[in-house]
């Protein structure tokens, strides 16, 4: 079954910007699908159409087989939504928030308590469950927000930038939760992110979106293999024979899978997608030519390269870490006001 399907989906806001521009893609049941793109790319807009919050200007979208425009209540009965902004009630306790969410989702009484306990356990908020949310930290609020999206065990869970502004530790924990709910409940997860690492760690498939258009869709590892550039950087001890060194370089260039070799007297930079298998062969050659390697480092192909290849720019160019941090502080401040 297809969990999410869009056909030439377009959203034009009043100011005439096409925030989502003619996109078509599908997400299979049980997948973790990631929508990757810089700020303003159209990620949230897409999610808001899929969760029935916004009407598409043109095109079609289906979630769990239901038309988001024509059968919105059917769609709502099958989804969970955790928005980019932290949307929980600060005047209620953590548990009250979950009870409310459960009641509004028509969870039968006999299941509700069980689901709440399970969700609290998952996001590790059991001890604080009876405290007013106003006393929670930003990360705890986000975790509670994610828990409330799970309370109805939706078929498809939409997570809009689930780890925005969280520290590394919390971020890793949230990745664990996401993997866990995907494994244990077989829940389909549609998430957006502008963190490469997040898409890389979590998603089976990704779509890169920029200026409202999908630049590429595909399996994460395949995409990396296709365009990624890995490099091996070698630092050499300088007491080698010049003649041997030249032969060494030529031999490396001849190795299978080596794309390019650049060097100075002391450094050697080998471009390749198959770093792991190449390293032992390079060591062998260095033995043969009596060259001592003092250090070696490997950079494998990453989504950054994929992103660069398809959008013509690095994600960092637009969303430098400092700026992202500031924006996050702003959001938390807003959410607490």
């Amino acid at each position, binding site marked *: 079954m297809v969990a999410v399907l869009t056909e030439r989906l377009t959203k034009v806001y009043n100011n005439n910007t096409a925030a989502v521009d003619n996109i078509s893609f599908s997400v299979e049941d049980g997948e973790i699908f990631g929508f990757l793109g810089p700020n303003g790319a159209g990620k949230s807009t897409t999610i808001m159409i899929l969760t029935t919050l916004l009407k598409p200007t043109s095109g079609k979208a289906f979630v769990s087989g239901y038309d988001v425009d024509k059968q919105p209540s059917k769609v709502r009965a099958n989804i969970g939504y955790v928005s980019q902004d932290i*949307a929980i009630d600060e005047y209620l306790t953590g548990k009250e928030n979950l009870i409310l969410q459960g009641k509004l989702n028509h969870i039968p009484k006999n299941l509700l308590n069980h689901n709440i306990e399970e969700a609290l356990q998952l996001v590790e908020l059991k001890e604080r469950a009876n405290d007013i949310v106003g006393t929670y930290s930003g990360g705890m609020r986000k975790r509670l927000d994610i828990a409330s999206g799970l309370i109805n065990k939706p078929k498809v869970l939409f997570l809009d930038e689930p780890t925005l502004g969280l520290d590394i530790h919390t971020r890793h924990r949230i990745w664990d939760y996401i993997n866990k709910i995907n494994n244990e409940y077989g829940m389909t997860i549609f998430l957006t992110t502008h963190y490469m690492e997040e898409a890389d760690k979590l998603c089976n498939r990704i779509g890169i979106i920029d200026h409202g258009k999908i630049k590429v869709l595909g399996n994460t590892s395949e995409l990396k293999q296709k365009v990624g550039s890995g490099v091996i950087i070698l630092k050499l001890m300088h007491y080698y024979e010049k003649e041997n060194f030249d032969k060494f370089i030529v031999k490396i260039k001849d190795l299978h899978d080596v794309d390019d070799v650049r060097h100075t007297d002391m450094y050697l930079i080998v471009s390749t997608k198959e770093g792991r298998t190449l390293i032992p062969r390079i060591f062998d050659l260095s033995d043969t030519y009596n060259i001592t390697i003092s250090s070696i480092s490997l950079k494998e192909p990453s989504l950054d390269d994929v992103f660069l290849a398809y959008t013509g720019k690095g994600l960092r160019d637009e969303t430098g870490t400092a700026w992202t941090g500031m924006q996050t502080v702003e959001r938390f401040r807003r959410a607490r006001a």
Partner: protein
Amino acid sequence: MIIQISDIYWVFWRELKRYSRSRIGLVVRIVQPAAWLILIGSTFAGTQSLLTTTGYPGSYIEYITPGIIMLTSIFSSIFGGATTLWDRRFGYMNKLLTTPVSRISIAIGKMFGISIISAIQASMIIVIALLMGVRLGNPIGLLPAMLVIIAFSMGLAGVSLIAAVLAKSQESFWATMNFLGMPLFMLSSALFPLELMPSWLSIVVKLNPLTYTIELVRTLIIGNSIPNIHLFIDISVLASFVITMILVAAYMFKREVSKAF
């Protein structure tokens, strides 16, 4: 669109929980009407002889008590839409809107919450009035009077909800509601009976649904009302006001929340 009582209840439940946890809101909403009761009640006590000429048998403070009760509920309900605006601002509304609860149920739950909170505030001012020595000629009338207060507050909650979903900012919402609230109160029979007003003013006052509501409350709790407007008219005007506002508010809510905020 299905309206489910349990959905309405849970939206309502949240409004009341929030209210009960916000002590400051509770105090702020009661201070102003209490000040009115004390200040106006004693300042205009000198107009007693004028009041008596209209045939009203009680004291001036007794005359204005129903008006001040309604003022309390106005203060509370007219700004009640603010929570809807905050919910939209902080994304909570989107969370509500992606649950299976219908938009109409959300709107009704919100309005009902506002109106019950207003009624709670109004009963506090009744207690204050009693402590100040105001006699209620007909204490049994308090119960139906509460229903009248709840109904009227529901209508005003509708007005407030409409303003909230149309407003683009907190500022414009508060400004609009301030602009509406005071005239609504002043241009009614809250402070002076119709008989004492210039005729142009009494026409305006007769167009104000609050006038009829106050007359109803006065009849019910003080017991000795000026029977210049018939009970039946009072109830019909109040009912049409409330039903119209609920319907328009529910429609506007549904229409506006489907737009980008």
